[in-house]
């Protein structure tokens, strides 16, 4: 299976959908859908995420790859499939911001990695806190682009703590990439430098929560 990862990744980066589809079918011929996702799609997306963080892959490639893989995985692992990962209740949101590309990328990569996750769209602080409490979330992913929105994560975390929510918060977006102390300052539990980072963080928390 390892031999498929590199060509699959290269096909994704160059947006060669025919080749990516063919490689995925080859993986499906040898393994269950979940194994094909976990052993080919997830590692390829992880590598693309790392390459983006290192500067050798562009955001457009990350977005288009995630979108393609999300559709691919949905086909073989529909949202109701019991093989989808048993996971903590999770949601992703754009906080007080109108830039949703980052959220779309993380959402796609999470789903392409076998996760089911609520998409809250765009919300402000108070409404978000209410929704997290109502949905009894265990993991909240917050995406922002501008600094004022990043600073509002502090209010979200403080309100959730005051209400005793048993939820972990992971943040991502440009302000956190340009100031590596910011996520800690606003009271988040972790910061994802890429979409695949978010997957790894949630995977880690899943283990801790069991």
């Amino acid at each position, binding site marked *: 299976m390892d031999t498929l990862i590199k060509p699959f990744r290269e096909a994704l980066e160059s947006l060669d959908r025919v080749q990516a589809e063919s490689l995925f079918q080859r993986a499906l011929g040898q393994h269950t859908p979940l194994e094909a996702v976990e052993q080919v799609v997830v590692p390829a997306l992880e590598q693309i995420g790392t390459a983006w963080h290192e500067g050798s892959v562009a955001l*457009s490639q990350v977005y288009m790859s995630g979108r393609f893989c999300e559709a691919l995985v949905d086909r073989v692992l529909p949202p109701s499939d019991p093989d989808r990962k048993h996971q903590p209740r999770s949601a992703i949101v754009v906080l007080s911001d109108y830039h949703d590309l980052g959220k779309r990328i993380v959402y796609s990569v999470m789903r392409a990695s076998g996760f089911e996750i609520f998409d809250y769209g765009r919300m402000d602080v108070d409404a978000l806190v209410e929704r997290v409490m109502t949905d009894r979330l265990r993991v909240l992913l917050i995406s922002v682009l501008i*600094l*004022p929105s990043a600073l509002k994560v502090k209010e979200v975390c403080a309100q959730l703590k005051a209400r005793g929510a048993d939820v972990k918060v992971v943040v991502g977006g*440009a302000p956190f990439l340009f100031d590596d102390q910011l996520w800690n300052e606003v009271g988040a539990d972790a910061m994802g430098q890429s979409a695949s980072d978010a997957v790894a963080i949630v995977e880690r928390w899943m283990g801790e929560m069991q």
Partner: protein
Amino acid sequence: MNTPTMNSMQRTLTALGQKEPDQVPLFLLTTLHGAKELNLTIEDYFSRAEHVVEGQMRLRQKYRSDCLYAFFHASIETEAWGGTTIFLPDGPPLCGAPAIQRPQDIDTLQVPQVVTCAPLAKVLATIRALKQRVGDTVPIVGVAISPFSLPVMQMGFHAYLELIYEQPERFEKLMQANEAFTVAWANAQLEAGATAICYFDPVASSTIVPRELYQRTGMRVAQRTISQIKGPTATHLASGRGLGLAEDIMSTGTAVIGVSAQEDLAQWKQIAAGRINLLGNLNGVEMRRWTPQQAQDHVKTAIAKAARGGGFILGDNHGEIPWQVSEEVLLAIGDAVQRWGRYPLSWVADEHATEPA
């Protein structure tokens, strides 16, 4: 320490001529801080040209910047295309719903007339008034979003990326419309008195699209557009990375490149080799929590890496200082330039400067 002998225009032009002026020019690109100076909300501040003129004059006086910045906010250009602006109390105004709702809307897109567009007229009035106040002593920087980056606001980021990859003909159609607009808008600002145009092109950066795609698309757009702008341009990738595209960006004919805080100014200096001028690269996001000492350290580092021989303007890495950056830090940056930016920069060792702690 020598006393400054040049005015801001002389200082800037000398630096842009790849020579050493009296001191390193500082382009402290403050926009929102003007509202603080006038004790107005950000929305009120940008509602009248008079406010921005007064704000810019006060900011320059206070922080000793070497330019006046006629930038209101990026979404003002999308207002010309039928879009709206959402004002925040503590941050840059944002775009409302995209004017291009579906890719097929591009087929019937009409290029707006700059002269009849009220929001743009406000910017032009600002430039004229600033020019009246300072004449040729201070550079006035106008702004035009590149035709290649404007669609992020016109139609939304994800929809635009899908257009680039999946509908190349419609993409070309949109570029034609945007190029006509950007050229007219940039030239109107130059006619009003702007000295140069900041050509914001974040999508061009290798952070956003791969180089091969940029070479086929945004680079050609920039070559066509910049060649029609009747004045110097500074290409700004708004924090995005550009080192891998240095030759491509230089091929567009631009005079200056805005450098990301994620890149090494010394490396840029080496690659530029006198062929393009550098602007940057103080980290605006981190700046919010700097102490005055840290501000000084970062200014020193940037100067040490890129200022020798001219060809360098000190500024932030994004093209706009965040609202949250304190007066104390902005004053410290000006102080540091006065102290460490006087040529011949004899304090700078030949070796690369060390990073501040």
